[in-house]
C-alpha cells in the first residue's frame, strides 16, 4: 500500500479509537481493555515490522516486553527515577539487549534465528526467578508487586481515573505507529523489500543486510521495551507469568488476524483479538483451545488477514502494478 492509503487507514483507526472514551469513559472495565489493546497494538506492530517487513523470524518480542517492564520497575524503584524517564531508560535497556541478541543472530538463517530469539524468551524465566534475578531486584517467582504509577509534571495518573491514562497511551501509540510507518516507507523499508525479493542482487548493489537488520532489531526492541515499561507502571505489578505461551500465542493471533507484513493490520488485529479473548473468558479452560483452533483456521482461510480482505475489496491503484508483477 502507498503512503497515502496507509496514513488514511491509520487516521481512520486512531480516529475511531480516539472518540471511544466519549461513550465508554465511565466504564472502567472497557477503558482498561482499550488501554491494553493499545499496548498490544504497538507490540504487535513492532513484531510485524521485524517479521513481516524485515523478514527476520524473531520470536523474542514478548521477552523484550518483559525485559522492558522489569527494567522500568527496577530502575524507578531503586534509583527513584520518575516513571516517565524510567520508561525511556527501560526502552534503552531493551534496545541494548536487542543489539546484543541481534549481533550473533543476524549471521544465522531462518529457523536458527527463530531458535536463538525464542531461547532468549525461554531462559528469561529461570534468570528472573533465580539468584541473578533476585540480586537485581526482580522479586524471584513472586514478581514485583508495587510499582509506582505514572506521573508527569506532578500529575499522577491513577487507576481509578482511566481516561487520562488512555490518552497518554493513545499518544504513545500514535507516535510509535508513525515511527514504524516512517521506517517502512523510508529508504530503510525499501532496503528490506529489496533484500527480501533478491538478497544477492541487493547486496551487490551495496545494501548492507546486516546493518539494516541490526537497526530494525534495535528499534523494535527499544519500542517494545518502552511499551513494556509503560505496561508495568500502568498495571502496577509484574511477574514471570507473562512469559507463558498464552500471551505469546495471543500476540501471534493479532498478527495472523491483521495480516503479516501489512502494517496497520496488526493494530486492527490486536483490537479484534483482545475483544475476542475477553468475550471468551467465561469459557475458562476452553478459551485457549478455541484460540488455538482459531489460529489454525485463520491461517488456512485468511492468510493475508484483514488488510488482505480490505485490499481485495478496495484494490486501489496498486492493482495494475500487482497484475504486471504477477
Amino acid at each position, binding site marked *: 500500500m502507498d503512503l497515502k492509503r496507509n496514513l488514511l487507514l491509520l487516521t481512520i483507526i486512531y480516529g475511531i479509537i480516539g472518540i471511544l472514551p466519549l461513550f465508554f469513559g465511565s466504564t472502567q472495565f472497557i477503558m482498561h481493555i482499550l488501554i491494553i489493546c493499545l499496548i498490544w497494538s504497538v507490540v504487535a506492530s513492532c513484531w510485524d515490522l521485524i*517479521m513481516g517487513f524485515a523478514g527476520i*523470524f524473531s520470536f523474542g518480542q514478548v521477552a523484550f516486553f518483559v525485559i522492558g517492564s522489569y527494567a522500568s520497575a527496577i530502575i524507578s524503584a531503586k534509583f527513584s527515577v520518575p516513571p516517565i524517564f524510567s520508561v525511556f531508560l527501560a526502552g534503552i535497556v531493551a534496545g541494548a539487549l536487542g543489539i546484543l541478541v541481534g549481533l*550473533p543472530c543476524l*549471521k*544465522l*538463517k*531462518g*529457523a*536458527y534465528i*527463530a*531458535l*536463538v530469539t*525464542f*531461547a532468549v524468551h*525461554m*531462559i528469561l524465566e*529461570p*534468570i528472573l*526467578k*533465580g539468584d541473578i534475578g533476585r540480586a537485581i531486584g526482580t522479586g524471584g517467582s513472586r514478581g514485583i508487586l508495587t510499582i509506582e504509577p505514572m506521573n508527569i509534571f506532578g500529575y499522577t495518573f491513577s487507576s481509578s481515573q482511566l481516561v487520562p491514562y488512555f490518552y497518554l497511551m493513545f499518544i504513545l501509540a500514535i507516535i510509535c505507529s508513525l515511527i514504524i510507518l516512517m521506517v517502512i516507507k523510508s529508504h530503510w523499508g525499501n532496503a528490506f523489500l529489496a533484500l527480501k525479493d533478491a538478497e544477492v542482487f541487493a547486496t551487490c548493489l551495496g545494501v548492507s543486510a546486516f546493518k539494516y537488520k541490526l537497526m530494525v532489531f534495535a528499534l523494535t526492541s527499544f519500542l517494545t521495551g518502552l511499551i513494556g515499561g509503560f505496561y508495568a507502571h500502568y498495571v502496577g505489578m509484574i511477574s514471570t507469568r507473562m512469559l507463558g*505461551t*498464552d500471551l505469546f*500465542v495471543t500476540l*501471534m*493471533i493479532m*498478527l*495472523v488476524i491483521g495480516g*503479516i*507484513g501489512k502494517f496497520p493490520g496488526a493494530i486492527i488485529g490486536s483490537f479484534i483479538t483482545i475483544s475476542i479473548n475477553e468475550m471468551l473468558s467465561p469459557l475458562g*479452560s*476452553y478459551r*485457549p*483451545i478455541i*484460540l*488455538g*483452533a*482459531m*489460529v*489454525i483456521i485463520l*491461517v*488456512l482461510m485468511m*492468510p493475508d488477514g484483514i488488510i488482505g480482505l480490505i485490499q481485495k475489496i478496495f484494490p486501489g491503484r496498486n492493482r495494475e502494478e500487482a497484475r504486471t508483477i504477477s
Partner: protein
Amino acid sequence: MIVEIIDVIISGMINGSVYALMAVGLTLIYGVSKAFNFAYGSFYSMGGYLAWLILSAAFINSYLVVFILAVPMLLILGFLIEKMLVAPLRKRDDWEIKVMMITLGLALFLDNSYQVVFGARMKSLPSILEGSYSVGEFIISYQDIVIFILSIGGILILRWFLNSTRTGMSVRAVAQNPAGAQIVGIPKEFVFSATFAISTVMVGVGGILLAQKYFVTPTGGWDILVKSWVITAFGGMGSIRGSLYAAFILGMLEAFVGWYYGMNWVLIALFAVLLATLAIRPQGLMGKWG
C-alpha cells in the same frame, strides 16, 4: 564421588539416547521439507498420554501392546495433520512463517485439550521393566537399559528405512533436490507427509519412553521442543549424524550441569553452549547451509 559421577554419566547417556531419537525426528522433517514444527513437543505429550490411556485400560498391561497400538495411531495422525494443515500452505511464498504459526496454534490447541481431557495433574506410567542390576555400590535399573536399547533401536530402524527401502530413498532424494526428485517421478507431496508422520512417531515414542522416568503433564512438551531444537541446531539442521552426536554431548552436559549446579541452570547452560557454537560455526556441528 566416583559412583555419583558414573551415575551422572549413565543418566546423561540414557537421556541423550532418547533426545537423539527425538532430535533426529525434528532434523529429518526440517531437512526434507524445510518446515519447522512448533507442535513437536505436543506430540511428545501425546505419546505419553496414549501410553497412559492404553495402560489404564484394565486388560492391557504390557508395553508391547502400547507400542503396537500407539505407533500406527501416531503415524496416521502425523500424516493427516501434514495433509490438512501444512500441505495447503506450501503454495504460498511466505509459507515458512505460516507453517510456524499454524503449528504454534496446533500446539496451543493440543496442550490445552490435554488439560481439559486429562486434567492438569501429572500422570505417571509404570516402569517398563522392574528390577535392577548391581555391581558393588553401583546400580543400574533394567528400565534404563531398556529405554537406551529401544531408542538406539529406533534410530537404527530409521537408518535402515532411509538407506534400504524405496520410500526411504525417495525421502533422501527429496531432501537433496526437491525439483529433481519430482522430475524423476517421486511423489513429493506424499514424501513430505510421510516424513512428518515418521517424525511424529519418533517423538511420540520418545514420549512413551521418557514418561516412565518423568511424568506426563499437559505442557511438558515445551521443554522437549526446546531441547530437541537446541540439539538439532547444535548438530546442524538437516544432518542426522550431527543430531546424534549433539544429543549425546548435550545430554551429558545437561546431566552434569543438573547434578553440579541444579536444574535451573540446565537451559541456560544449553543455550550458552549453543550460542558459542553458532558464533563460531553458524551452520552447527555438521550442517550445511541451504
